[in-house]
């Protein structure tokens, strides 16, 4: 009798287990985290990819390149978005944790230097740019601009754009202490649009009619000059994976690299690789 009772208990248990939703409902989950610059590409691509592949669930979060890379090293995300290369310390840490980050370049981006449209400034050299952002030059009259005091606007230090700008434009020097630090590219563009004496930098995708992009060393920031490497403030955008991407993650990155995916890159204002 006892055995019959226990068989019944097990049967109930197995039945309860079978109530779990079927695997086909959402077998593959991909967590994407990191750069706010890469975020719009990742979000749009995920939306389109999931509509074509209902079995795949993609969760996309921002947080900054540093956060995405840290999550990849910790194993809490499948794709770490980054607008900068991984630092040596991050690569070493990844190695110590048994991770082998694979850089998947999904697009190029140019960091555009922008001023308020009312500013008469027409060009800057890379040296002048560095002097402005490090505090050696504080007046527009010293570099051919209009107005008096230069108001420097920068991304905050957790941003990949900040890291990339520091490396590409400032040779590793720090941004002046009184710079207005902003949490997003959009916020930088908004401050520049409202402040006549301001100068800042944003991803190429954030250039709009309310700000003016300034040529650097005589080269306009454009898709062509970024891809050719002529524009001095250009950078690749990465989706880092642990080892070569596999399964659903590979399918998602392959989609971004496809003609349809690169069309999204283009529509979001970045430089498509195709």
């Amino acid at each position: 009798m006892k055995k019959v009772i226990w068989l019944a208990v097990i049967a109930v248990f197995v039945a309860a287990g079978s109530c779990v939703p079927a695997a086909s409902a959402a077998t593959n989950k991909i967590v994407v985290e990191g750069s706010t610059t890469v975020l719009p590409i990742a979000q749009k691509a995920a939306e389109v990819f999931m509509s074509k592949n209902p079995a795949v669930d993609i969760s996309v979060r921002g947080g900054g390149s540093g956060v995405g890379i840290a999550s990849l090293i910790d194993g809490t995300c499948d794709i770490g978005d980054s607008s900068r290369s991984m630092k040596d310390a991050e690569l070493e840490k990844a190695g110590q944790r048994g991770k082998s980050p694979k850089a998947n370049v999904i697009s190029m981006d140019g960091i555009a230097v922008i001023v308020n449209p009312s500013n008469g400034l027409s060009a800057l050299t890379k040296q002048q740019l560095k002097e402005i952002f490090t505090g050696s030059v504080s007046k527009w009259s010293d570099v051919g601009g209009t107005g008096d005091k230069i108001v420097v606007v920068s991304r905050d230090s957790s941003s990949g754009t900040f890291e990339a700008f520091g490396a590409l434009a400032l040779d590793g020097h720090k941004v002046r202490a009184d710079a207005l630090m902003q949490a997003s590219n959009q916020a930088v563009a908004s401050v520049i649009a409202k402040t006549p004496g301001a100068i800042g930098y944003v991803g190429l995708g954030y250039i709009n009619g309310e700000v003016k992009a300034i040529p650097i060393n005589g080269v306009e920031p454009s898709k062509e000059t970024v891809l050719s490497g002529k524009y001095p403030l250009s950078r690749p955008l990465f989706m880092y994976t642990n080892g070569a991407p596999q399964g659903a993650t590979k399918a998602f990155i392959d989609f971004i690299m496809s003609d349809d995916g690169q069309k999204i890159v283009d529509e979001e204002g970045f430089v498509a690789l195709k």
Partner: protein
Amino acid sequence: MKKATLLLGVMGMVLLASRSYAGEMEILVQKLVDKGVLTQGEGAQVLAETKEEARKEVAQGKAANIPQWVQDIKFKGDFRNRYQWDKAKSATTTGTEENRDRIRVRLGAETRVIEDFKVGLGIATGTTTDPKSTNVTLGNGFSFKNIILDYGYGQYLPQWTAPVDTTFTAGKFKNPFWEPINALVDPDINPEGAALQLSYNVNPSANVFLNYGFLYLGDTFPKSKNQLQNVIQPGVSWSVLDNVKLKSTVDFWLAEVKGQTQIANTPGTNTLARNSDQGRTSDIVYQNDYNSVVPKLELGFTEPFFGYNLGFPYFAVFGEYMDNMSASAKGTGWIAGFKIGNEKVADKYQWQLVYDHRIIERDAFLDAYPDSDFYGGKTNVGGNHVSLNFGLSKNSWLALSYFNTYNLTRLTADSESSRLPAQVIQADWNIKF
């Protein structure tokens, strides 16, 4: 195809050339772009990805100067200072009290020796004769305290079984069998033998798992009848709704020990008798096998509770039932209770209150296992337990526990006090790393 081959060739050359010829590689890629073999975008992609690959190899090469298994060592440990008050009635006294200040120190390390293989070991305070406690009592004229081997194991985690996570462990290892609270199996017990754990995520909200253990209970192996324990634990963990979680198992704890001598370091509260076989009357042997079926369940709710915020983030009810199919009498038991507060006390100001009531009949379960704080880890017991944990910081917390327990059997038929009640109060300060 031609393009892919060229791309691979260029990437290989850049990787091999690493830093010295990076400039030449850029020229080569540019020539391929100029000739229309690569688009400008593909050229930029190849250069950027190969540069990153080369940087990774250099950076991880630095770390590789130290053997990988050393780099992969993970240490963990904890310290607990416990003030404990006990009061127990015996057959001859009305109740003796005891106050003790006790410490527990544990230090463990684990490393990945080679791909898919790990080794772990841990040391702790304690004695070799009490597998259910790593406490040592302070005092005794500043005497030195013993350090013992708490666990030591080898582990195989094959990747080829993906998407099923597989862990095979052999040696003396941490208890792999889930329980809503550490009641039926004392948390200090580290089983010995081998265990296989399989886990599969059916979907993002559901996981099914199977734990199997082949454990040595006694040291009689390889006598004609071995004291062995087989444990089979199939289970499911399922987020039923966004804020409702269910975890449940049906355990089979199978030990055919009838006629075998009493297992070492056990309290001897299972049914035992002098062995009359073959004239070995001095042996005390089990009168039953212990083939216990134990369904367990925890149903947890996170805030908001069906739309209501009640001031705490987690509430759960849990229960276990045990039935020794090989016992003709006194072979069942149950544990039921609730948790309220935070799901885990992992940070400052987090808290959790746990209450449970337990009834474990004499032969419901092998007495080698139950929680030693609850009437000395015996069977044939009942009573209540309540604990309050409070976080002091990320890795430090206070705990206050009370056990009010009694023997299920009266010594004297009409006397309730002959159940020999016992109370324990424990005040703990824990730090872990």
